[in-house]
């Protein structure tokens, strides 16, 4: 007997919770039996979701093809509408994949990545460490690559306390993460410039997005400090003519799908806050008006919902062939208003194993030659790295601080403190973690 999906789900949840409590009675660790039951339930739900998903995907592909010849009309609608979602700026086209250009025989790829040991107040000292991995690979020359890493330890008063927005705060994970992200970027710019100075034609690869959206809503001085340093890096790269790209593997972004959602909206100019299909916006309408609106619903949901839940990568997997890229789109993130001449554009590319998202500043997007170079190099890098740019994965390997390294670091620290007779203490929680008694 088929139980309605929603119902099944709630029954399943209730049962699993009861089991979870019972199952823990004689095991201190993860109760695998309880987990397995929940996994089975999850898979059953997932299968239902997938059928729904396939249908949504077909609709998305159809819509993408439908809008391609009249992408300008869609672009105009985007400009007219007020949505709560991030929209792509359609500047060239919507569809129309570009074939893979050839990579120049001699090219160098610079990449950086960072990793850290977060400050731990349960430890002997509240210092933190940032490790940056540097990669400079030369192709077509046989020259020895540069592969290294540099750790920096931060421990001084002015390093572990920071003043932002009139408040003095002890560094936390977020701040260390932001600092690391900035270092990755500025060090990448410097590495690429140094490589160019040595006579190499170079491209700079950054891991992840170039859009510092996380700065939105941060204290003004904090935001300005990070933006200023980032822009300085962009300025130097632009002046030197070194293309920089941010590569995002398995992107979850939905800008293109959002544009299709807008395309599905029956209104001339959408305004999501006043969406007439939402019950809360239907006050004061008579029965016939309501009926008319209800007819436009998709399975009882608002008219833009058929492509809800699909992301750009899933859609483009159906469109792009290996090596092909989409046209370039303009990002509409609010933070980019502070980027000056370095507004970020993006495209998706089928690198062989997956659809990746490539972000580039405006001056790369507008230079046909640089754009072709970026396209060729990203595919070449992904091919060399069996699906993921080899320079980025090597940078990660250099940067990564593993659990064992962290242990060694704190052991060093403790030993050195003791040898030098410096008073320090570690929290009882930390002590308990190491020596759990019975």
């Amino acid at each position, binding site marked *: 007997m088929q139980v309605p999906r929603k119902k099944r789900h709630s029954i399943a949840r209730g049962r699993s919770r009861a089991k979870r409590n019972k199952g823990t009675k004689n095991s201190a660790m993860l109760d695998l039996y309880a987990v397995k039951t929940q996994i089975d339930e999850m898979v059953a739900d997932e299968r239902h979701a997938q059928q729904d998903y396939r249908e949504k995907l077909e609709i998305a592909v159809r819509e993408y093809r439908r809008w391609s010849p009249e992408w300008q009309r869609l672009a105009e609608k985007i400009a007219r509408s007020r949505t709560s979602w991030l929209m792509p700026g359609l500047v060239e086209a919507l569809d129309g994949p570009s074939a893979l250009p050839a990579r120049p025989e001699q090219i160098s790829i610079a990449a950086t990545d960072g990793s850290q040991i977060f400050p731990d107040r349960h430890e002997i000292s509240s210092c933190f460490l940032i490790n940056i991995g*540097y*990669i*400079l*690979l*030369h*192709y*077509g*020359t*046989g*020259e*020895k*690559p*540069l*592969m*290294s*890493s*540099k750790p920096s330890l931060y421990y001084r008063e002015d390093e572990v306390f920071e003043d932002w927005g009139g408040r003095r705060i002890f560094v936390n994970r977020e701040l260390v993460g932001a600092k690391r992200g900035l270092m990755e970027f500025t*060090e990448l710019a*410097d*590495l690429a*410039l*140094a*490589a160019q*100075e*040595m006579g190499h034609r170079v491209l700079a690869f950054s891991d992840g997005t170039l859009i510092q959206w996380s700065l939105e809503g941060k204290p003004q001085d904090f935001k300005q400090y990070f933006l200023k340093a980032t822009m300085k890096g962009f300025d130097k790269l632009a002046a030197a003519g070194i293309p920089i790209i941010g590569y995002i593997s398995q992107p979850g972004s939905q800008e293109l799908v959002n544009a299709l959602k807008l395309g599905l909206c029956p209104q001339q100019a959408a305004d999501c806050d006043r969406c007439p299909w939402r019950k809360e916006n239907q006050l004061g309408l008579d029965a016939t008006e309501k009926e008319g609106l209800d007819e436009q619903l998709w399975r009882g949901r608002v008219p833009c919902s058929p492509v809800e839940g699909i992301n750009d990568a899933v859609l483009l997997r159906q469109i792009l062939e290996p090596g092909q890229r989409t046209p370039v789109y303009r990002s509409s993130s609010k933070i980019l208003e502070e980027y000056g001449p370095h507004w970020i554009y993006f495209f998706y590319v089928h690198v062989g194993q997956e659809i990746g998202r490539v972000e580039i500043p405006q001056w790369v997007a507008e230079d046909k030659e640089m754009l072709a170079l970026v396209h060729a190099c990203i595919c070449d890098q992904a091919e*060399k790295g069996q699906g993921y740019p*080899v320079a980025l994965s*090597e940078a990660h*390997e250099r940067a990564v601080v593993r659990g064992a390294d962290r242990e060694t670091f704190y052991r060093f620290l403790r030993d050195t403190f003791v040898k030098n007779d410096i008073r320090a203490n570690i929290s009882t929680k930390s002590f308990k973690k190491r020596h759990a008694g019975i």
Partner: protein
Amino acid sequence: MSTVEEKKSNPLSRFMGDEANAVSAWDAEKTHVGEIVESSTTELVAEAPQLHGAPSFGQFVRVDSEMPIIGIVFNVFTHSIEPNRRPTAYGKTEDELRMEQPQIFELLRTEFQALVIGYIDDIGPAQVLPPYPARIHSFVHLCSDEEVRAFTRTDDYLRSILNTSKIPTDELLIAALRQTMRAHEGAHAYLVRMGKELSRLLGDDYDRLSSIIRRAAY
């Protein structure tokens, strides 16, 4: 000195590891073929400064120290420097790989093992195990012909080779003999002495003796 200054002016040097900078400053006068990474009284493991740059099987090596230690290379191996990363087949020649996958050569190391057969003190070469093992990070050099000749004035080291169990003993013996014969420039007196010593060591195992001599003289 000029090379050090040159390196400093390299804008990339800031991004290189400290060891890389130190090594490049050394480049000019570097003559070692290995650096000790594991050491015991009877055996050494050394890392070659370059990939595939180890001395050959059977070569005599000397470890720098107050009492230089003499060893014979009995195993050379190349492996990944990262325990969880293994080399995989790319279907390309080494030249192609150097052009298009340059990073892999940075992730491989060549190391070699040497059997300790003696040392040199104030009096001269001694064919007994040294009182102390070689120190970790000491440099390993190839023995010159002259050093090999001096060390092989007596033949007790042959017994050391024959007495070890974990290595292909006969093969090592043959390789070592070929090295020493070259150092002695094939001197007739040396060949005769070797033959006599071997026949004494191998007792009545005539087949083994003739196989060794035949292959060493080949």
